[in-house]
Structures are given as C-alpha cells and as structure tokens.
C-alpha cells in the first residue's frame, strides 16, 4: 500500500484535477514565459518559491480582494497559498503553469471564504472542491462572481457603500470610520451590517445558480 503523502491536506488545491488532463501544456506554446521560474525551481526550489512570490504576490492579492473585499483577508489568502505551495511541495506536482495554478487556488480559497462568510450554503461539511473536472465555464464563472459582487456594492446607497468600504476594504475600526464620516459609531455599525445583509441577500439569489452550475 502506498504511503499517504502529506500534501493531501491542501483542501482546495485546484491543480489536482488538472493532473489528469492530457499531459502538460506544450512548453513551447504557452508556458514558456515561466521557463526561468521552472529552471529555478529544479535548481533551487526555495529560490524558485521566492521568485514566484515576488512575481505574483501583488497581482494575486489584487485578484483576491475582488472577491473578499478586505485587504487583510486577501493578503492572508495569498500568503497561505504560497505557504502551502512550499510546504506541500506542490511545485513538484503542478502540471499547468504556476500562474494558472496560483490563480485557481486564489479563486477557490476566496470562494470558500466568501461562502463561509456569507453562510449561504450552510453546512461546513459541504464539499469545497467538488469540481474535480474543471469545466471551461468555471474560469468564467469566477470572474462573473466578483463582477456581481462589485455591482451589488455599487448599487448600495452612497452612505452605506462608503461605510462598508472604509470598514471592510480599508479595515478601519468603527470609531475611525465614524470620525471620517461625521456620524456616530453606532450608525456606522448599522450601515455596515445593512450593506452586508444586502450583499448576502443579493448574492444568495445569484449563488443558487452559481452553486448548481459548479457542483452538480
């Protein structure tokens, strides 16, 4: 019987489904802009990870925040991905480009965070990476999901939106937001929770569709 590798625990490693695809991408065609990274990884994985981090960290954070609307959470998600990438030695198993792997990982994690935060599909034990065979549609649906979130926030009443953005995205404290907006902290709290419940409500309507497309 085989030993069970420790890297099994990357709960949403999206690259896994890819490993069964029709072999690696023809190197000359698409992945060649990562050849430097790849050669670095085979020579010195630690250095390779560092290069990868330098190259993609900022862009991945920027991508993550579109879903989670919080700087702190976005940065945590991306840092976590790089950490598991190194600790599970995922770089040995990635058959796609590192870029595709990382973007997919960010999307999966951001989605899981959102799902948890919005508490839409209630049970915590629902499978989080059921999409073993990624459809072409999946790549598009994630983009549409963050666009949807953006639209919902854009449609919030002005005060509500401002409080939400200051609190969530900037990560400010209630009294800091209150001072900036010249209202009471209580009022800020009410505005933010109104914004959140509005997002939750609107997203859940969208989510039913998203979820069924994804996981059924």
């Amino acid at each position, binding site marked *: *019987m085989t030993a*069970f*590798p420790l890297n*099994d*625990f990357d709960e949403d490693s999206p690259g896994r489904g890819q490993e069964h*695809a*029709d072999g690696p*991408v023809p190197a000359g*065609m*698409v992945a060649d*802009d990562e050849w430097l990274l790849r050669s670095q990884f085979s020579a010195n994985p*630690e250095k390779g*990870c*560092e290069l990868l*981090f*330098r190259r993609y*960290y*900022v*862009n*991945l*954070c*920027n*991508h993550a*925040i*579109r879903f989670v609307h919080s*700087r*702190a*959470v*976005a*940065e*945590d998600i*991306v*840092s*976590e991905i*790089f*950490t*598991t990438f*190194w*600790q*599970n030695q995922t770089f040995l198993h990635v058959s*796609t*480009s590192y*870029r*595709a792997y990382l*973007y997919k990982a960010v999307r999966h994690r951001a989605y899981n965070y959102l799902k948890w935060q919005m*508490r839409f599909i209630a049970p*915590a*034990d629902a499978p989080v990476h059921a999409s073993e065979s990624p459809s*072409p*549609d999946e*790549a*598009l649906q994630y*983009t*549409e999901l963050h*666009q949807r979130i953006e*639209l919902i926030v854009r449609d919030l009443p002005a005060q509500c939106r401002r409080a939400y953005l200051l609190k969530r995205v900037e*990560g400010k*404290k209630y009294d800091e937001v209150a001072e900036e907006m010249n209202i009471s902290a209580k009022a800020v709290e009410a505005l933010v*929770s109104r914004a*959140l419940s509005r997002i939750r409500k609107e997203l859940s309507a969208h989510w039913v569709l998203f979820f069924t497309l994804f996981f059924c």
Partner: protein
Amino acid sequence: MKESVIRALLFDFFEGKTTSIQRKMIEEWLAEPQNEELYYRYLDQWESEHPQFAPDADHALAHFQTMLSGIGDEPVQPIGREPVGRVSRNTWLWTAAAAMITIVFGVAFQKQVLYKSLESAPGRTVSYRLSEGTEVLLNANSSLLVPRFGFSGSTREVILDGEAEFKVTHTAGHDRFVVKMGDHYQIEVLGTEFVAFSRARGKRVFLKNGKVKLQLPQGKQVYMKPGSLFVSGRDGAFKMTAPADPRPYTAWKEQTFYFDNTLLSDVAAQIEEQFDVRVRIPDTLLAQRRIGGIYKATQADDLLLILSDLMEIEITQKEDHIELTIPKLP
C-alpha cells in the same frame, strides 16, 4: 482566433463588458485545454493593469522568506502577516462575524467559528500536520476539528469524530494535547503516538508509546501504558487490555480490514464507518456468523465481494442500503 483579438475580448470580459454571444465564444475557446493557460496569462496581465490596492509586498515577502527558511512553520492555520496589528484587525472582523452569526444561528454555531474542520472522504485516509507539528492520519469518513486561529494557552485541544492516528509532538512548554471524543470521553497527552476511535457505537484508544490519561464520563480517569488498549461500548462499560497483536487497531492505515473471529454484524458496522454506505443484515443468525482474515479493500465493493465468495452470502443493492442475505436454495 487571433491572439490580439482574444486578448481584447478577454479584457472586455474581465471588465464585464462582453455580450452573452461573446461570452459563448470565450467559453468555446476555453474548451481547448492550452487556451486555459492563455486565459490565466491575460488575467494576470489585466490584474497588473487594474490594481485594486497596494499590498505590502515587502513585508509579506520577508514573512514568506522566514517561512521558507523553516523558522516559522504553520501549515494548517492561516498565517498572520503581522502578528500583532493583523490579529487585532482580523479578530475584529471575526468577532463581528461571530456575533452576527451567533444571533442568527444560535450558540450551537460557535464551534464552526472557532474550529476548522479537517475531513476525510469515505474510503480515503488523509494526513495532516497541525501547526505545532503534531501529525494526524485521519481514517476514512472521519473529521477532526482544530482551532481555526491556532492553539492558544497551555492546552492544545482538538475534537475527533471517527478514527485517527496521532503522533503528538512534545512542546517546549510541555503543553497538554487533548483529544475530545464526545460523550465526555477525552484523551490527554504530552507527546505520544496513539490511535483513537470515536463514533456513536463506542470509543477505543490504542496507545503505541508514551503515556496517556483518559477522562471518562462522570469524572473517572484512567492511565494507559504503552501497548494497551482501551475500549468502551455504547453503554459506557469499558475495559483495558494489552493485546498481543496491534494489527486490528492499525490495519486501517493500510486500507486493510483485520478480522479475527469477528461478527458479521461488526463487519457490517466497519464497512459503514469506512465507506459511508449502509449495510443491513435482516437475518440475525447470519449476523452472528463469524469471520477471520486480513483483507485489503479500498472500496466497499472490494470487501463485499470477498464476503460473498467466502461466506456464500448474497449481496443486494437496495435503494439506500446494501443487504446481506443467505441465498435461497432453488
């Protein structure tokens, strides 16, 4: 499709400016596996051109380098970039979320906020390494709750439902490692290796080495020595033995079933636990037949086929369960 065209099309799509017909076009283009690579390449380019905020990359990189060099290792828990500032900000967020959810879902939900669930699917074992170095091999169809924000205080506490092998690391501060098993059973150790089984039909602990303290219902306590086995049933009665052969308690690690004069009803229970399928034996005489041997099975069918050959029983797949019966003579 020309590259410049698809690039423009994708950029429009990322900005939410495509028509549904164009979307269909992109979807068809994406069906070609190598185009997915291009998709992410353009997504990355687009992100470069449309920044949302400026993450503190230097700080994050410094943290990442520390992790690479192996000084701080925290695989399971989220890593906090700035231990002090970040925690307070995050805690705020979590607290707000927790408060909100508590109101909506009641106190019962608290567990999900404070703990993160590590799980294994039916028929699959999974290994995890916890933030302080403890290794856990989770048997199929089991779950382990670990603190979402890392262990705090002098007790490392996890909650087990199912079966798992623990290799607990001894911390510098001699922190206790506690496995809660439900029904007021819990295991307390400093640093040892043991296999714990916790399901509705009973609790079982097999200690490989080191020393273990068990907390039992009604405040009872027992200590275990290396090589000893603790078993308690549904009724709360327990016994402690020193089995000559540990294999029955560790066979699952090799996806193997170890039966030694085992009741068929017990075999059925094990199949249920391992593969999350329901197995019924309507004939009580059949249920009391016994079986021995070591069988490897990665799915329920493997084992059921062996059983049907060996014991000449008939296996029928019913709507929501599998039935084992004695075949009727023609």
